[in-house]
């Protein structure tokens, strides 16, 4: 975390000059110097960095140069949009990816399997923004079924805003969630497929068949369960990636989340927002890794036994 904070801070010191953007077209040298001093930009790099860390530990990221509002407040305002989008994308990726993976693993040569595999190749290789624009062209411009941008009407529950409770909110969610989830979906599908094929060759599956267990019990009770450890690892890490890389999807769909905030801040060299966002993403990754490690214990009994035996 410290490393990320240092790198992000150091990087942003060089990306641009917020002073130039804040002053506008007409100013004097005296005005410029006064602003630089007010922002503390005239101090040595390490003094600026230590101040930044000291404040960050207290959850205080300063004031956005662009919007003149506290950064923490801005991010809290945008977080629900990103989290809802990421959640939907992850659910789509898991709910569709795992069954497709199982199917293609079991029936390797069926026509449907080949179709799924071709589809997954497209999903992996097309860049996200292109998928998003294609979906917009088809479902918003040509067919007119779904909105091309925004979040629809949202309902306010305390500080959280949700699009789950209105029709327009749900409709607005579909295209971005698919766009964001497609890459993860194909990844999970290919992973489950490979693992299934691996597991189906092992001896205990053969023994299970010899015992006369039903296909259903073998495929889902024994085979699928054993594929889950790597799938959970990847899915967990991918959830972090979904939140972090929602930037592109949010930009294409003008989704008012943290990623869009980040991009808008980059345009204005709004350093406090950029630094806080990167720190937050680092925190998300660290937390998710921790949760994934803990989940192993729940899924894989061997880890628990191993601990008891020593």
């Amino acid at each position, binding site marked *: 975390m410290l490393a990320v904070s240092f790198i992000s801070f150091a990087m942003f010191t060089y*990306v*641009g*000059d*917020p*002073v*130039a*953007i*804040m*002053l*506008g*077209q*007409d*100013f*004097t040298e005296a*005005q410029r110097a006064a*602003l630089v001093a*007010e*922002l503390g930009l005239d101090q040595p790099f390490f003094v600026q960095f230590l101040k930044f860390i000291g404040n960050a530990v207290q959850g205080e990221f300063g*004031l956005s*140069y*662009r*919007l*003149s*509002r506290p950064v923490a407040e801005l991010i809290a305002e945008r977080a629900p949009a990103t989290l809802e989008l990421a959640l939907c994308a992850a659910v789509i990726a898991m709910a569709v990816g795992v069954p497709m993976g199982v199917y293609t693993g079991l029936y390797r040569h069926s026509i449907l399997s080949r179709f799924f595999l071709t589809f997954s190749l497209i999903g992996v290789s097309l860049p996200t923004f292109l998928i998003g*624009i294609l979906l*917009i*062209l088809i479902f*918003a*411009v040509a067919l*007119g079924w779904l*909105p*091309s*941008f*925004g*979040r629809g009407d949202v309902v306010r529950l305390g500080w959280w805003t949700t699009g789950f409770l209105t029709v327009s909110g749900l409709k607005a969610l579909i295209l971005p969630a698919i766009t964001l989830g497609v890459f993860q979906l194909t990844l999970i599908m290919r992973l489950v497929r490979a693992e299934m094929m691996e597991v189906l060759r092992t001896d205990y599956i053969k023994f299970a068949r010899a015992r006369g267990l039903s296909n259903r019990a073998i495929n889902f009770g024994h085979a699928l369960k054993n594929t889950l450890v790597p799938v959970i690892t990847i899915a967990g890490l991918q959830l972090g990636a979904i939140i972090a890389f929602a930037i592109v999807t949010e*930009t*294409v*769909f*003008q989704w*008012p989340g943290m990623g*869009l*905030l980040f*991009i*808008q801040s*980059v*345009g*204005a*060299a709004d350093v406090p927002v950029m630094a806080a966002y990167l720190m937050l993403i680092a925190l998300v990754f660290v937390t998710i890794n921790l949760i994934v490690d803990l989940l192993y214990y729940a899924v894989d009994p061997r880890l628990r036994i191993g601990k008891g035996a020593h």
Partner: protein
Amino acid sequence: MRIRLFAALAALCLSAVAAEARTVRWSASGDPNTMDPHSQNVGTVTMVLQQIYDPLIQRSRTLGLAPGLAVSWEQVEPTRWRFRLREGVRFHEGQTFTAEDVVFSIDRAKQPTSNFGIYVDTIESAVAVDPMTVDVITRVPDPILPNKIASVFMMSRSWSEANGATRPQNTRQREEIHTTRNTNGTGAFRLANREPDVRTVLARHADWWGWREEGTGNVTEIVFRPISSDATRIAALLSGEVDFVLDPPLQDLQRLRSAQGVSVLEGPEVRTIFLGMDQFRPELLYSDVRGRNPLSDLRVRRALYQAIDIQAIQRVTMRGQSMPTGTLFPEQVNGYAREEDVRLPFDAARARALLAEAGYPNGFEITLDCPNNRYINDEQICQAIAGMWSRVGVRTRLNAMPLGPFFAKIQREDTSIYLFGWGVPTLDALYSFQSLLASRAGGQQGDGIWNYGGYSNARMDALISRMRTETGDARQAAIREALNIFREDVPLIPLHHQMIPWAMRSNISIPHMANNQPYFRWAVVN
């Protein structure tokens, strides 16, 4: 049968309601970052605030001056302008508009936290003569005060005082103030709802004084939603989710023109694109020429100028959406002279000859700094120019970057040659001359503030100070002579004026404005 009757009735009611509510859903790439009328002097803020606030003098459809909150104005003494105010005007929250509000608003625009200093720089004070008359006293005679005052919005004194907003929002202060997200103007629309970066809703102010005037429109509601991605913004227009797009990308214009239900309105912008050149260093920072500065030689500047095939740039790079120029500003600006708007002809052979004459028969190497997200097709223009210069022997390295780092770089004067654009909000020649061509050592605020090439010419400085104080023909003559020096001396290489097409659904009509401001008071929705 009965159900059908009900359905028909319901449909009738709905269409009646629809006829009442005329909503324009408007989109652009950027969102205004404040609602304070004196804090940020940028187009994205003004495009929303000018719907809400009125100035004393407003712009007509042709960008001329027209009565706004002042019904008349005159220069009673060289340093005293007298404004007679409009009777019976009320702010959106009910306060009556009086001379006190004018005095307050001008004082507010003069505060150090104001970004509108250039429009009130000559003002000594504003004095209320009686409730409906205001005198503005200037330190020096200021012939273009009305042009400048047309950019200063009028606020309510009692409202600002009650809400602790007597100073413009300070963009570097810790707390936001009331005016960051609230407004109280006298304009045609009032702010109904605002979610920054997501949605800004304006509702028609039925009591606006101007609705009685001829040519006003029927819009009852404006919903502004920024969409930063070009492709998505256009998709939203094509799918009918958005009615009006202020900044359609050039490459989509052809498609928009042929699309059903969409029309494109073309027009010029008061913004000119130039190349600036380092003319003050003894040696360039980014070149292989040692011991001398080729750009301080007029012959080299002319060679670079004549090596540019501006017609090709207009045709290919700009897809026809530019007006090549040889002068400093377009014709909407006071002082423009058609006779001075003549380019040095494109002539590669002549360019090579000039370079040889100046002592560079084999050309030289140079780096061209260029923004890649500020002006229309800025990076592509630079690519074209780099190619054209390389053909006459000036080997050009292109250094394109986003506007943040770009402006930081040129403001450090860390550049040898750079592309930039200049708009003229006052629509008067002085604004361009004093910012771009006055010597940087000049004493006044704004002198040479964008003269990063360090151009300095005593005659030019003298003419600029004459433009500040003289009036009538003498002033026009000074501008004319300065324009001639600009053409002869090539302190900047002019390229073109930008065009700014607007795209909208076919049921919307709105006059195109060269200041790139949509005035929805004049918009009609059918």
